C-alpha cells in the first residue's frame, strides 16, 4: 500500500478533544519522568536498607504505585518529592515494619574483596556506609534525603511527613553521630594499616 504525502486539510484532533489529548500526552511524558527517577530512587532505597533485593523491590513498588497514581500528581515539578514520599511511606508501612518484626537490623555492608577495596577511596566508601548503617532509621533517612538526594528541608519534611524543625534537629543529630562514627573508624583503620610497633 502506498501512503501519499498529500497536502490535504488536516483538522487537528487536538482542537476537537484538547483535554483528552493533553491528558494523554501529559501521562506519557510523566511516565517517562517517573522511570527516569529509578536510579536515584534505587541509590536512596539502598542507602536506607543496604540490601539490594529489598531496595529493588522497594523501587519497583514505588514506580508501580507512582505510575498508577499519576493522575493524582498536582504539581509536575514536584514529581521527585512525590515519588520519594511514596517510597518513604512504603518503606515505613511495609519494609521497615517487616524488618523490625523479624528483628533484623541493618548490617554493615560487606563488599566483595576486590583490588579496589584496598584503595583509600574504597575504604572511605566502606567506612561511610558503615557509619550510615550505625544510624537509626529516622536519622539514616533524613541524612540521605538531604545529602544524597539533595532535597531541601521543606521537601524532606513533606516526604517524611514531619515538621521542618524535626528535620533540622534529626539531621543535626545524625551528622554528629556520623562524624563520631567516622572518627572512630578512622583511628581503627589507621591502627590497622600502620602496624609499626616493635615486639
Amino acid at each position: 500500500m502506498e501512503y501519499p504525502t498529500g497536502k490535504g486539510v488536516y483538522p487537528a484532533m487536538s482542537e476537537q478533544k484538547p483535554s483528552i489529548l493533553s491528558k494523554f500526552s501529559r501521562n506519557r511524558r510523566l511516565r517517562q519522568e517517573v522511570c527516569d527517577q529509578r536510579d536515584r530512587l534505587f541509590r536512596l532505597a539502598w542507602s536506607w536498607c543496604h540490601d539490594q533485593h529489598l531496595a529493588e523491590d522497594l523501587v519497583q513498588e514505588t514506580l508501580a504505585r507512582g505510575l498508577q497514581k499519576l493522575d493524582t500528581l498536582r504539581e509536575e515539578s514536584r514529581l521527585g518529592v512525590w515519588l520519594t514520599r511514596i517510597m518513604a511511606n512504603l518503606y515505613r508501612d511495609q519494609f521497615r515494619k517487616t524488618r523490625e518484626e523479624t528483628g533484623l537490623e541493618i548490617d554493615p555492608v560487606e563488599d566483595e574483596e576486590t583490588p579496589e577495596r584496598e584503595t583509600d577511596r574504597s575504604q572511605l566508601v566502606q567506612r561511610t556506609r558503615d557509619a550510615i548503617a550505625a544510624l537509626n532509621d529516622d536519622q539514616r533517612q533524613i541524612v540521605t534525603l538531604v545529602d544524597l538526594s539533595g532535597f531541601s528541608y521543606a521537601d524532606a519534611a513533606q516526604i517524611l511527613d514531619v515538621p521542618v524543625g524535626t528535620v533540622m534537629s534529626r539531621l543535626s543529630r545524625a551528622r554528629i553521630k556520623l562524624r563520631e562514627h567516622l572518627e572512630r573508624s578512622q583511628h581503627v583503620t589507621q591502627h590497622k594499616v600502620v602496624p609499626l610497633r616493635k615486639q
Partner: protein
Amino acid sequence: MRHNDELDINAYVDGELTPEERLEFLEAMRDNPELSREACELTNLKSQLQLAYANPPGLSAGATARKRSPWGAIAAGTVLLTTGLLGGWVLGTAPNHSERFVMLDAEGRGQAPATAESPETRIVVHLTNPNQAVAGELLDDVEHMLRAYQRDGQPLRVEIVSHGDGLDLLRTRLSEHQERIGKLSQAFGNLTFVACKNTIDRVEVSQGIEVNIIPEAQITGSGVNHVAKRQKEGWSYIRV
C-alpha cells in the same frame, strides 16, 4: 557549641539560609575558625556520602538492565509513541515527519475528516511491525486512550489490524501479550483485534506449519483491504 549553632551550620552547608542569614554566618565564620572548620567538615561529609552511594551494588549495568526491562521499555515507548503516535496526531499537519506512524484520510490525504462529522472517534491501527516491544507500547497507548475516553464519556472505537510481520502479536505461539490482549478485550468492548487471513495462509504455506490465532482476535480475509475499507469509512489511520 550551642545547639542553635549546630542547626545554623547545617542550614549553611545545606543552602537553607536566607541571603541575609548567610552573610551573617559568613561573617561569624571569619571571626571563628572553629565554626569555619566545622562547616568545612560538614561539607566534606556531604560529598563523602554522595561518593559512598554513587554506585551501590545492583546499580551495575547488567543487573539494573535486567530489573529495569519493564520500566525501560515503558520509557522507550514513551519517547517513541509520544513523538510518533501523538506527534502525528496532534501535529496532524505534518504526518510524514513520523516514519512509523502515518495518518491518512479516506482519500489518502492525511487526518480522516470523518472524526469531525461523527461524534465517535474511530481509529484503525495497522500493525506491521514485528517487534513485540513496540506492540506492547502500542497496547499501553491504546489502553490509556480507551480509559481516558471512557472516563470522559467520549465514544471511541479502536481496531488493531495485524498484518504481515505484525501478525505475531496475535499468534498463540508467538504473542508476548496474549494475556493482556485477553484482559483488554474483556474490559473494552470498543477495542477489536483483527488478524489478516492472507498473512496466515502465507505463513502456513511457506513454513508448513499451522498458525493459531488467539481467540479474542477476529479474522479478516485481507488485512490491507480491511484497513482500506476502514479508511473509506472515515476512520483515522495509524500505522505501526
